[in-house]
Structure formats: C-alpha cells, structure tokens
C-alpha cells in the first residue's frame, strides 16, 4: 500500500459569513488548497466533502459546480464534529486502496449562534431542563466533573486551558479571535454550565478547510519539498462503557483511537512535537492530555499548571488557538487542525511556530460518538 502525502492544505480565516453559501465557503478553501499544491481541480480524481448542516444537500457536488464540474466521484459525509476528519480519512483510504493517486478533501460549515445540543426532540414534552441538560456545555461540563471527581481537578485549572488557547490565538491570523483573556476574565465570564464559563466554550463560526492528498508516486512527481506524510489515520466509535448511553464517554473512544494511531505510526506520545486536540470546551481539553497519552492519568491538572502544553512547553497543545478561540465550524474543524499541524511541520507557522516539529497529531471528537486521529510527519 502506498504511503499518503498531503501536498496542499489551507483554511480560510474563520469568521461569520452569512452572505455566503456553504458551497461558496467550501470552494474558497478548496481553491486555496489546490493553489498550495500547485494543482487544479482537473487533477483531482475524487472529492470527499464533510459538512453537517446541509448533510442531505450534496454540498460536495455543489462545490464542484462552483469550481469545476469534472465528473469525478464525490462522497459527502457527516460524522458530528469528526466530520472533517472523516472526509480526510476517506480520501486517505482511497489512496491507500490504490484506487486514486490524487484527491481533494474539503470540510465546511456555516453555523448559527447559540447553544448546541439539547434541542429536545422525541415524543411528548421537551426534556431539556427536566431530565438534566443535553446542551453541549453541560454535557462536557459533566465530563470534566468526572475528572474533578477522580483527581480533584479545579475550576481554575479548567479555566487555564482557555487562557492558554486564547493566548495562542493572538499569534494566529486565521483564528476568529486574537484576544488575550487573563485567568480572572475567564473565570468571571458568564457562567454557562458550571464549570464552563462563556470563555471556556468553543466559538460558533463559519469556516472551511481543504487538503490535497496524493500517493507516494504522485508526491515524488510533484516534489516532496513541502509534502507532509500521513503516518496514521484512525477512526473509532464509542466502545461500551457503563454510563456511555447516559453520559457520553469521550475518553474510551479517544483512548482506543490513540493506541491504534501510535501503533500505526510506529511512534509514541514522547515523539509528538505538537497536538491539535478537540477543545470544544475547556473541560474537554484536560481529559484528552491523558486520553492521548501526553501525560499519565491524573497528571493533566499539573500539565496545565506547569505550562507544559503551552507554546514553548514540553508538548504544545492547540497552538492555533483551538476550537476555543480559533473557532469551531463543525464540519471544517477536522481538516483545519490538519492544516495547522502541516503548517508547523513545514516550518511556516510564523510567530507560533513550534520549533523543530517533526511529528504532529490531530484529534477530534464527534459526540455520539466518533473519534478521528491523524499523525502527520515532516518529510523534507
């Protein structure tokens, strides 16, 4: 099986673009990624498109109707917040399988404002606020409280995640926000779902990101100068655990994915130079330090206290600003974090560059649940 390389990757600056259509947003990133690769839409043998909001509306085909109707295979996919990673992985698999040499993956989302999840549904009466809360801030607050229960993790430690990621985003011109948020600002912001304040919730934004994936043969033809090798691509679903159907377990699904990804890449967590992980809420980031093996169980609070996960630390996490400040356009997020890691591996990340980056990891969670992990390696 051929190795797979990313030869073009880009994202639009995340923001709010109500005047644009979803295919228009997706097309922007697609063209940017093609330009980055020095290729055209005529070179693409397939398109894998990730979008949630219009999952039944042929977004991939509509992107080609904007930028080039070449008649190639289009696969539209939806997998909650793992949608973009799933599209990228489907593209990767098509090359692994030897079916194609050169394909495009696009993730795109146009978001409304406000709370996600907990909208009710089902028969009878609305259950939100009656049978607890199904809103995302509450669900991930409860996941964080399990860490607090097990290890004594504090509100302040969760809040420090937001301070860090907002700081990182001041160095990322493509982030939605570039604003410092000191600890007292984060902790005193409007409480949404204890212990998540407003500044500890990811930002709903519009966005798109895209990547061109090629086989080894094609990569050599094009030149490996800025190519990035996909060392591992893993997708998992939630394994059975006692409370999972009542309290979504984002830990088990991540742990099995991480284990598979390290095995596939032939490396361990100690080899990873940077991680873009799914900080949909500040509480979630803490869990994933342990789930991804960046520290031992119970050590995540100390990691954030000691700054080990900040830019310049032992293992920088979410130097892009993360979902908390770069923003979280659901279907685009999985490819946007691949863009971020590739940018560091190419040494093109400017002020936020993680020096000497060789391996980088991306991680997303789609609640319900899906976990997508990719490990990428610098080539040249």
């Amino acid at each position, binding site marked *: 099986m051929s190795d797979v390389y990313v030869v073009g990757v880009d994202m639009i600056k995340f923001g709010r673009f109500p005047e644009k259509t979803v295919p228009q947003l997706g097309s922007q990133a697609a063209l940017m990624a093609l330009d980055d690769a020095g290729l055209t839409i005529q070179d693409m043998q397939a398109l894998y498109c990730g979008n949630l909001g219009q999952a039944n509306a042929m977004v991939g085909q509509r992107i080609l109707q904007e930028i080039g109707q070449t008649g190639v295979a289009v696969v539209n996919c939806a997998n909650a917040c793992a949608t973009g990673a799933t599209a990228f992985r489907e593209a990767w698999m098509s090359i692994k399988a030897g079916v194609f040499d050169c394909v495009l993956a696009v993730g795109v989302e146009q978001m409304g404002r406000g709370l996600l999840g907990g909208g009710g549904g089902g028969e*009878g009466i609305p259950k939100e606020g*009656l049978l607890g809360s199904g809103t995302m801030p509450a669900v991930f607050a409860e996941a964080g409280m399990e860490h607090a229960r097990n290890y004594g993790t504090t509100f302040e430690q969760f809040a420090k995640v937001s301070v860090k990621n907002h700081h990182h985003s001041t160095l990322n011109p493509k982030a939605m926000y570039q604003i410092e948020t000191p600890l007292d600002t984060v902790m005193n912001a409007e409480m949404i779902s204890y212990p998540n304040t407003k500044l500890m919730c990811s930002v709903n934004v519009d966005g798109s990101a895209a990547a061109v994936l090629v086989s080894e043969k094609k990569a050599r033809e094009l030149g490996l100068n800025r190519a990035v090798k996909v060392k591992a691509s893993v997708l998992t679903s939630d394994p059975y655990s006692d409370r999972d159907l009542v309290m979504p377990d984002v830990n088990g699904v991540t742990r099995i994915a991480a284990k598979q990804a390290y095995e596939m890449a032939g490396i361990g967590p100690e080899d990873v130079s940077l991680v873009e992980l799914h900080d949909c809420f500040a509480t979630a980031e803490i869990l994933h330090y342990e789930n991804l093996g960046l520290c031992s169980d119970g050590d995540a609070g100390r990691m954030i206290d000691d700054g080990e996960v900040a830019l310049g630390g032992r293992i920088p996490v979410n130097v892009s600003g993360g979902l908390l400040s770069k923003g979280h356009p659901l279907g685009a997020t999985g490819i946007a974090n691949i863009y971020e890691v590739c940018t560091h591996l190419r040494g093109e990340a400017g002020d936020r560059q993680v020096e000497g980056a060789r391996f980088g990891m991306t991680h997303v969670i789609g609640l319900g649940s899906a976990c997508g992990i990719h490990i990428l390696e610098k080539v040249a």
Partner: protein
Amino acid sequence: MSEQAVGNGPLPVVPYLKGAGTEDPYLEGLKCDACNAIFLGDRVTCSKCGARDQLQATRLENKGKLYVYSIVYRSFPGIDVPYISAIVDLDGGGTIKGNLIGVEADPANLTFDMELDVVYGDALGRKDKDGNSYISYFFKPAV
C-alpha cells in the same frame, strides 16, 4: 405512549418510567442475563456483549449516589435556570440523568457520591400539544 393516552392520569415523561399516576412509580431497566449490563428504554440486543433476546425488565431502585453534575445557567428560552443536571448511579445498578432538586445550585452544596432519592412529580407544568400533563422523575438529597 398512545395506549396510555386514552387514560385520565398523567403520562410518563419517558417510556421507562412505570406506574405514572399510581402511588408506586418507578424506573424500569433492561438487564442482560448474559453480562448483567443495564439499559434504559426498549431494545432487543445487549450492546455490551451482543446477546440477543436476553434482556429482562428489572425494577430500578429509587435510591442512588451523585456521580457527577453540572450547574446549568444558560439554557433555551422558557427554561428556568439555574438548575442542576445530575448523573446518578442507582443502588443495585443503572445510571440515569435528571434534575437534582431540593438543594441550592451551588458547588458548595454538592459532593460526589452524596446519597440521593429518586422522587416523582409533575413535569414542571409542561404539557404536550394535546394538553396532556406528564409525570417525571427527579433527584433529591436523601432524607
């Protein structure tokens, strides 16, 4: 739900709340004979071990312990806040999610593993489009 809608009493908020409108409401789980996993709601196959047709209805206990919680300050329009969203491990098995009432919504009042009773009452005045009222379950600090 439909077969109960012809009666006069309140309807159960979820199908696994049994005995709505009687003196003896309770929550019903399905327990796998093969692996003892407990589920809420209708199903035929165990998602832990894959056993088919081995799920037996079991009456869950009206006592449990607070596993984790969140205090919800921002919800959808018309929903009173703050309230405590709680995940509770029931004595004898089963985990359920619901509102914890009868205690001020402040982390200082909440301790992991605190003993709770499952209590039943009107579903906060909520009615469906046909005007039916509902009975729900809640958690309360054990007395």
